[in-house]
């Protein structure tokens, strides 16, 4: 059983790619509906009928993960950490458009939801609409394509070119084992939201967002503190209206705030990061510190472990978030040495690691990524491990009950 779905995905893919050249246009999503039907028909004609029926009968093989955050808030870094947990580097499709936003590795395919812009840069400027505005995005097409991929059908996904601001000819996306949809609106549309097996929201406080964008943009010609501030402020009403509300639907939220260890710190270098984990999510059990469900405050630095200024402080406990029961793990401060990191890992439980020290190993492997010495890197790595666990649980439950899956 475990072998069969893999084989069928391949056979489906090949029929799909054969049928694509005649339907490569992406201007309207009706084409994709046709394409959707065509592929079903061809696959039936193709011969391996019993397997194809299993796949197209809604026996979803692709696990879909949603990652929401504003531009410049660390989605790319998170994606690199996540794909690394699954092993193998994620790279743009070989031989395709060099400006493609897609990343592919053995296990995962990451697609950028900007590709579903219905208005290109000129169109948005003419209409006075930002990319944050739902009117600039085609949620019907997003839903159709994510749904198709989830049920094992390849799609011709448009490419939004961030350099030219235009929509480029589409690229073929084959159904992966894990599909990550990252961007501004993965949880905005209810239909798309319902397709997600797990969702994450990166919630960056205004102070930190400002500090990060200064770091990113100050070296860029034409930028100044004023231009960076003006851009953040101009986009804020749309951000508050369309992006921020999505966090209520997320299974995990990573909140990034200024530190409380240094009084009146506004440098944004030392961070306080909170991992908010929803309770009762299928295949996901929150990480905890010392004792599950208790409220704990922990300063690991002292006699046993020496930390450099301003130290490290952890807290953990139950809470509510938009009416949901959650567990919150918080880390304030940063690591300067490896022994600090491994000491902390050894005190956390339910990490879904495969061996002792895996979190530390992952963090070290990508020590050059932003946030590797603080809670952003630590919690991104932990969420990556939890997603691997979730994927393994979902696939295991499917192979355990193959009969039920085919009936449904």
């Amino acid at each position: 059983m475990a072998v069969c779905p893999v084989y069928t995905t391949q056979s489906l893919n090949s029929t799909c790619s054969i049928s694509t050249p005649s339907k490569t246009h992406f201007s309207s999503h009706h084409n994709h509906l046709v394409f959707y039907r065509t592929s079903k028909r061809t696959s039936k004609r193709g011969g391996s009928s019993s397997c194809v029926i299993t796949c197209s009968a809604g026996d979803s093989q692709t696990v879909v993960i949603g990652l929401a955050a504003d531009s410049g808030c660390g989605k790319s870094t998170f994606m690199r950490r996540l794909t690394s947990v699954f092993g193998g580097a994620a790279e743009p499709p070989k031989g395709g458009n060099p400006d493609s936003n897609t990343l592919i590795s053995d296990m995962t395919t990451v697609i950028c939801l900007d590709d579903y812009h219905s208005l290109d840069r000129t169109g948005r400027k003419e209409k006075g609409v930002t990319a944050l505005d739902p009117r600039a995005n085609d949620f019907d097409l997003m839903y159709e394509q994510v749904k198709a991929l989830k049920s094992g059908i390849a799609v011709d996904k448009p490419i939004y070119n961030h350099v030219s601001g235009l929509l480029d000819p589409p690229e073929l996306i084959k159904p992966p084992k894990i599909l990550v949809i990252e961007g501004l609106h993965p949880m905005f549309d209810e239909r798309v939201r319902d397709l997600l097996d797990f969702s994450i929201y990166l919630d960056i406080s205004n102070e930190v967002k400002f500090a990060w964008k200064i770091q990113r943009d100050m070296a860029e010609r034409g930028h100044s503190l004023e231009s960076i501030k003006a851009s953040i402020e101009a986009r804020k009403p749309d951000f508050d209206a369309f992006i921020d509300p999505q966090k209520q639907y997320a299974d995990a939220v990573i909140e990034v705030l200024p530190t409380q260890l240094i009084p009146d710190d506004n440098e944004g270098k030392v961070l306080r990061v909170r991992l908010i984990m929803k309770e009762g999510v299928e295949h996901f059990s929150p990480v905890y510190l010392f004792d599950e469900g208790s409220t704990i405050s922990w300063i690991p630095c002292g006699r046993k472990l020496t930390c450099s200024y301003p130290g490290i402080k952890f807290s953990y406990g139950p809470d509510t978030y938009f009416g949901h029961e959650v567990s919150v793990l918080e880390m304030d401060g940063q690591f300067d040495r490896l022994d600090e990191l491994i000491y902390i890992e050894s005190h956390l439980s339910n990490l879904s690691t495969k061996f002792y020290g895996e979190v530390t190993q992952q963090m070290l492997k990508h020590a050059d990524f932003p946030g590797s010495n603080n809670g952003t890197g630590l919690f991104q790595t932990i969420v990556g491990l939890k997603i691997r666990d979730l994927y393994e649980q979902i696939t295991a439950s499917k192979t355990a009950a193959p009969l039920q899956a085919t009936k449904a």
Partner: protein
Amino acid sequence: MATLSSVNLVTPRTIANGPDVPTLKVPCLNRPWTRVSPMKLRVGPVRAAPDGISEKVEKSIKEAQEMCSDDPASGECVAAWDEVEELSAAASHARDKKKDDDPLENYCKDNPETDECRTYDN
């Protein structure tokens, strides 16, 4: 590796020399693409910025500032600043990509068996 890096060095030079040598000598031909060359010349030396994104960022900031001098709350002003953000993010991603873009590493990813890509223990 040696060939790869030398190609990188040579190409910009040939591009820079290309347009001003032959095309300026044949202005009489009524072909539209010859008219393109003087414009290409005016662009001048290629800056280090990948794909000219830096210039686009700079231009978009100027446009946003102009757009907003009339009505800072208008949709056009907000969309202009959104474009600045989009291009700034693209510029940052391009910088990251360039940083990771080692010609030898890229070559060895596809050709791990070749002599220059073999790694030896001890």
